[in-house]
């Protein structure tokens, strides 16, 4: 099967649908028309920019550039995960906990996959490294953001229960165990659901893209399974790490609950 290359005129045709929707919602006074148009323009601009960068990096294949892009992706993901918290850790701790966890899980999983599973030469070949890392970071970020949000919200809401256990001689770990467990589950459930639904309820985006771009379905399916497993491991371990770091930060060395280390984000 030949890859049918899309022209800008083709994309402009596809944009007609979005414009029609914007006009309709404006007439219905739903108040989303403006945001819809801005979001559509952002999609086009951001993806074009990424496309240009990737074209350059793919042509160059220099390790420094790939490492720089990976680092930028990591920091942006860390910032995004921290920004999604209703109650944030003060002093950039939430950003640090999220970023370290994503580095440990997403980076390690990506490098291991490149070296052991795909065995591409050199292992940092950008066609493989960048998309893999992007998929992993995106999903790990969602898991970590959900889990940290659940952890801090519940610790705030159930401060009396935590302190009741501390006052009776529980360690910080025992006092926060239930809340920590619930936060870890909250971070992992979207990923577990996605694996259970894959292929039946949803055709995963990556697989769809590969098939559209001309890959045989069977090859696309194998890559999709690989990605799902990597996402599961990456998200899971990233969530465990972030929640562990976050739960530790809620207490000091005298096992006191220190909620003043959280501050409410402006809505």
């Amino acid at each position: 099967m030949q890859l049918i290359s899309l022209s800008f005129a083709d994309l402009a045709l596809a944009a007609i649908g979005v414009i029609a929707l914007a006009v309709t919602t404006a007439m219905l006074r739903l108040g989303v028309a403006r945001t819809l148009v801005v979001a559509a323009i952002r999609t086009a601009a951001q993806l074009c920019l990424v496309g240009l960068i990737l074209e350059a990096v793919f042509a160059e294949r220099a390790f420094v550039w790939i490492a720089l892009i990976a680092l930028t992706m990591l920091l942006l993901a860390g910032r995004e995960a921290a920004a999604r918290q209703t109650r944030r850790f003060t002093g950039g701790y939430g950003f640090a906990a999220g970023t370290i966890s994503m580095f440990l899980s997403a980076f390690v999983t990506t490098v291991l996959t490149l070296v052991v599973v795909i065995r591409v030469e050199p292992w940092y070949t950008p066609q493989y490294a960048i998309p893999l890392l992007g998929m992993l970071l995106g999903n790990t970020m969602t898991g970590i953001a959900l889990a940290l949000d659940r952890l801090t919200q519940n610790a705030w809401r159930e401060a009396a229960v935590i302190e009741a256990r501390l006052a009776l001689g529980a360690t910080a770990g025992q006092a926060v165990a239930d809340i920590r467990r619930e936060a870890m589950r909250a971070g992992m459930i979207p990923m577990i659901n996605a694996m259970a639904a894959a292929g039946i309820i949803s055709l995963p985006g990556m697989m769809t893209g590969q098939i559209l771009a001309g890959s045989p379905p069977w090859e696309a399916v194998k890559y999709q399974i690989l990605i799902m497993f990597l996402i599961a491991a990456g998200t899971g371990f990233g969530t465990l790490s972030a929640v562990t770091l976050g739960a530790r930060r809620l207490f000091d060395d005298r096992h006191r609950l220190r909620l003043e280390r959280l501050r409410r984000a402006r809505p």
Partner: protein
Amino acid sequence: MASTRPRLLLRGLSIGGIGPLDAAIAPGECLALSGPSGAGKTRLLRAIADLDPHGGECRLDDRPAGVFAAPAWRRAVAYLPAEPAWWADTPRDHLRTADAPAGHDRLAALDLETTMLDRPLTQLSSGQRQRLALLRLLDGQPQVLLLDEPTANLDADNIARVEALVADYCAERDAACVWVSHDPGQRRRVAHRQLALDGRGRVTACS
């Protein structure tokens, strides 16, 4: 002489502008703490239990709090908040000695039924929960009791039962007690000595 050594010694205890508080409480002794609302009685109890960062020093049997691991300190110096919180569904989940003879005796002493142990806590009255919280506290066999209005939701009969149970416990185990109460009559009944805070958290009266 070992008998004159205080069970609990507070030296220059302060927290957020409240205090400083100096006190020595002997084994078996009860100190009442009073003061207007917001004077910082609860914060002082929390400081003694080391639940909040604070200034000054607390000693148990002449050993400073710092030599204890924090959980061990709180098992020995146990704080009962005015509004106790519960983490599981039924009282039994919170009581280790529910089925031991001592546990039965204490339930009976506070006029609580053993059948109550398996009912959801949400179905019990606030007075029942308050008495159960005291049992939960005594379960850990603390050497110091820090009681924050432990009879606020109770009728006269149950107030007398709680006062008697605490007095028995302290006498039996030579435990020390700090009892926060708004009721002057209760302070006279339960305490050997009294201490009052003014509205700005300073110690104004001792007797």
